[in-house]
């Protein structure tokens, strides 16, 4: 039953999520503008942007849409996997 849920629901949803973010990022549909917080703080208030400290796990891959899609897909799988572990550990066994 549980295996069925993974093949019928979890895997298709993950594939759809990766496909959608790939289309949005590679299609140039995602905005490159600063988000509301960054705009208000750095552009509007004129606060100096700090030198970034921790560059991120995948910073060695560089930047670009393909890297964003790849790291995004890896992130989706990591979040799914850790989420499954956390909720498996906290669920009530039937």
């Amino acid at each position, binding site marked *: *039953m*549980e295996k069925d*849920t993974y093949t019928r*629901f*979890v895997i298709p*949803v*993950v594939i759809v*999520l*990766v496909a*959608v*973010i790939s289309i*949005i*990022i590679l299609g140039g*549909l*995602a*905005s*490159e*503008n*600063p*988000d*509301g*917080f960054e*705009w*208000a*703080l750095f552009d*509007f*208030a*004129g*606060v100096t942007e*700090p*030198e*970034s*400290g*921790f*560059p*991120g*796990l*995948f*910073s060695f891959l560089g930047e670009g849409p393909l890297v*964003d899609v790849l*790291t*995004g897909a890896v*992130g*989706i*799988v*990591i*979040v*799914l*996997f*850790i*989420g*499954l572990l*956390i*909720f*498996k550990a*906290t*669920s*009530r*066994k*039937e």
Partner: protein
Amino acid sequence: MHVPDGIIPLWLLLLLYAVSGLFLAFSIRRINNRFDDRLVPYMGVLAAVIFAAQLVNFPVPPFSSGHLVGSTLLAVMVGPFAGIVIMALVLFVQALYADGGLLSYGLNLFNMGVFSCFFGWGISLLLFKGMRKAMDEKRAVVIGTSIAAFITTVTAAFVLGLELLSVSGFNELALAAITGVHLVIGVGEAILTSVILLYFVRAKPKLISFLKDSDVHEIAEVIETDWTTPHEETKIIK
């Protein structure tokens, strides 16, 4: 809304680390053993959906952009406690991607997790209970949650603005600016919330705590009063 390191004073970061840590520990304890293990795959998928949705920014013409936060959506679906756990996971992985600082993790979890989950859940519940009298519950949950997502986004931005007043150069005018730009971002949040919620209403309504036949009432229960139970008749008797 992901604050990087090096902006907010350390004392405030440490304070909100402590507050968020306490809420996270309480939330994990609160959901423990309160849901069937058959729901585990769906909870994992919810976390993945929120992470994916936060990856891409939609434009806010002419100068800014925004992305889904998803706290209100999560709180309505699986309750504020499970919502906080999911947001903690998503924000932690994002911090490892340098989207939001590691030192600022507690502050980001407070704004987008603790505050937004409880505030969004409360507003959604009020709207849902009011709207349910005039329409069917599925429509009421989608419309009510979408409106609540808008209000929560703007309010969370205001809270972030209050925190930013501790930063030299960020004044009351900037507080108005960050709140104002989130009036537009909140519309995007409301639209994305309604789209994702519509999918779950059709594909997996049992995963929406506000609906009568939900499988997640127990995990979503906040306190045992009629006011916080969307459907009094389904209240769990212990």
